C-alpha cells in the first residue's frame, strides 16, 4: 500500500530545542491514524510536520510519494487540509464565506468562485451540520460550531489527507461522536487519509485503525489500538495509574482514569489481578503527572 505521509529520521525544533528527535514513521494511504501522547510530547509539531507546514531541520518528509519540497504551497493545500486546534473568531466573514475559502487552493490568482464551488461548500456544511448557520458570523457561534465550520472548510478543500489537531476538544458528547463518525465516513467512502491528534484515549481506541503513542518527541509505540494501549506503556508514558479494560461493545481497549483517593485500592486491585509489576515506581519518577516540562502542548 502507498503511504500518505512518510517521515524518515526527522528532527524538528524551535531554536535550540529539538521537539521531534530522529522520528521515522509511515501513515498508510486511507488510514484512520490517531496520534496520542502526554502534553509537550510534540504532537502538534508532528501534525504540522506531517502537513508539510513545518520543515524539518534534518530528515525527509514525503507526502503522497513525493518530497514535500516538490509541492508549491497551493499544490500542497489541494492535497492536505488542516484543522488547527484554535481558530481566531474575530473574523468578520460569514460561515458560508469561511467554508468557501476552502476552495482557494483550487482557484487561480484572480479566479472567482463558481457555482460548483458553492455546491461543494453547501455539501461540506451539510456534512458537518452547520448549514443553518451559513449566514452567521464566526464570532456569533459556540466553540463547537466554529470547530465544525472549520472541518467543513477542510472537507470543501477536497484534500486526500485531512489532519486535525484535537478536533473534538471543545465538542459535547453528541458532536464528538458525530464528528468522529463523519471522519470515519469520509475515510471509508471517499478514501481520505485521516490523521488526528487526540487526548481522548477511548475515542482514539474506538475509531483509529492505527494509533501512535508519542512522548518526548519520539515514537513510543505504533500499531493497532490493542497493541499500543497497554497498561505498562501508558503508565510509563503518562506517569499515572489507570485501568485498561476492554470496551464492552467491541474488541478495543478502554482506559479508565483513577482519582488520587482511590490509588491505594487500585494498586492492590492491579496486583491481585496481575495487571502490573511496577506500579508506583513510574509515578514517583515523573513526579506530579505527565506534564514533565510544564509547557503548553505544541
Amino acid at each position: 500500500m502507498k503511504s500518505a505521509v512518510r517521515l524518515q529520521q526527522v528532527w524538528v525544533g524551535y531554536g535550540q530545542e529539538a521537539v521531534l528527535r530522529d522520528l521515522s514513521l509511515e501513515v498508510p494511504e486511507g488510514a484512520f491514524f490517531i496520534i496520542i501522547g502526554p502534553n509537550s510530547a510534540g504532537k502538534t509539531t508532528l501534525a504540522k510536520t506531517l502537513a508539510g507546514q513545518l520543515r524539518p531541520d534534518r530528515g525527509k518528509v514525503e507526502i503522497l510519494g513525493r518530497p514535500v519540497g516538490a509541492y508549491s504551497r497551493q499544490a500542497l493545500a489541494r492535497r492536505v487540509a488542516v484543522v488547527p486546534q484554535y481558530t481566531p473568531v474575530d473574523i468578520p466573514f460569514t460561515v458560508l464565506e469561511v467554508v468557501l475559502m476552502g476552495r482557494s487552493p483550487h482557484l487561480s490568482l484572480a479566479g472567482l468562485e463558481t457555482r460548483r464551488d458553492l455546491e461543494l461548500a453547501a455539501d461540506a456544511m451539510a456534512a458537518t451540520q452547520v448549514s443553518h448557520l451559513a449566514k452567521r458570523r464566526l464570532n456569533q457561534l459556540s466553540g463547537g460550531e466554529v470547530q465544525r465550520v472549520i472541518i467543513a472548510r477542510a472537507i470543501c478543500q477536497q484534500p486526500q489527507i485531512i489532519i486535525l489537531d484535537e478536533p473534538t476538544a471543545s465538542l459535547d458528547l453528541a458532536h464528538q461522536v458525530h464528528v468522529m463518525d463523519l471522519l470515519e465516513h469520509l475515510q471509508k467512502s471517499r478514501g481520505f487519509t485521516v490523521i488526528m491528534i487526540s487526548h481522548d484515549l477511548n475515542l482514539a481506541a474506538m475509531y483509529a485503525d492505527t494509533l501512535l503513542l508519542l512522548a518526548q518527541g519520539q515514537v513510543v509505540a505504533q500499531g493497532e489500538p490493542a497493541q499500543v494501549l497497554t497498561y505498562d506503556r501508558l503508565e510509563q508514558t503518562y506517569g499515572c495509574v489507570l485501568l485498561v479494560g476492554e470496551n464492552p461493545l467491541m474488541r478495543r481497549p478502554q482506559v479508565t482514569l483513577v482519582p488520587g483517593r482511590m490509588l491505594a485500592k487500585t494498586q492492590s486491585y492491579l496486583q491481585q489481578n496481575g495487571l502490573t509489576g511496577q506500579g508506583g515506581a513510574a509515578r514517583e519518577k515523573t513526579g506530579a503527572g505527565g506534564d514533565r516540562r510544564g509547557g503548553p502542548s505544541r
Partner: protein
Amino acid sequence: MSLPAHRLVSRLLRVCLMLGVLLLVSMVSGMLWGSSATAWQDCLRALLGRSDPEEVLPAILWQIRFPRVMLAALVGGTLSVGGLVFQALLHNPLAEPYILGISGGAAVGAISGILLGLSPFPGVAALAFLGSMGVMLVVIFLTPRETGDKRNALLLSGVMVNALCTALILFFVTMTQDARLHNILYWLMGDLSVALPRQIFSLGLLLLPGFVILYLLARPLNLLYLGEEQAGYLGLNVTGVTYLLLAVTSFMLSAAVCQSGLVGFVGLVVPHLLRLMLGPEHRILIPACLLGGGAYLVFCDLLARVLPSQGELPVGVITALIGAPLFIILLQRSRL
C-alpha cells in the same frame, strides 16, 4: 461576500457605479466652486466650453482646479486603499496608512527639502518620497524575524520609528523661525494646492500598476483574516504576500503623500465606513475604497477652499474635523 462569480461581479459593478457617480459629482463640484469669487454658473458654462474664448476662466478651471481635484481624488483613493490593506495585513482596526512610519519619514524628507529651499515639485516631493521609503525599509529591517507575532512586531517598530521622526520634526519646527515655518506646517497638515498637471500625470502612472497588483491580491487579503497559520494551510505564501503587499502599498502611499503632505483620517474613516456598509470582501472593498476615498477627499478639499472667507485651510484640518467624530460614531455602531 464571497459568492459565485456572477453575483460578485454584479455586486462589484453596482458598488463601482454608485461610488463612481459620487466621485464624479464631487469632482465636478470641486471644479465649480473655489476660492475665486466667480459664480458657479459661469464656471459650469466654461466647463462646458460655452464661455468667450478670450476669458481666463477656462484656464483657471483646467490649469488650476482640475489638477487639484485630480490630486485630491488620487491621494484620497490611495490613502483609503492603503488604510484598508494595512488594517487587514496587521489585523488591527486602528491601523492607518501612516502607522508603519510612512508619515514620519515623508515629513522628515519634506521638511529637509523645504529647509534646503527646494521647489515643492519635484524637489520636496522627491525627498519626502525617499524619506518615507527609507523609513519603511528601516521598519521592516528592524522587525525581529523570529517573533511569533510578526504583525505586532511590525506595528511596534513602525510606531517607534514614527516617534523618532516626530522628535526630529519638532526639532526642525522649533529651530525654524522664518517664512519656511508656514510651508512646513502646511505640509504637515496636508496641502493639495500645489498640484501641477504633469505631477498628476506621473502620480497616476505610478499608482496604476500598484492598484492592479493590490486587486489581484484581494482574495489572499481575505484569507489573512484567518490568521497566518490558517492562511498558510489554505495554500497562501503568507510571508511572501505580506511583504509584497507592504512593498506595493508603501510605494503607493509614499508616492501620494509626498505630493499632498500628511492628510490624516482618510485612511482610517473611509475603509471602516465602507466595510460597515459593504462587508469584509476585499474584492469589493479595494475598488470601493479607491472611488469612495477619492470622493471623500475631493469634498473635504472643496470645503477647505470654500469655508474660510479669505485664503484656505489645509485639507488635513477638514479631514480631521470630519473624520474624528465620524469615526467615533462608527465605533459606537459597529462594536469592533
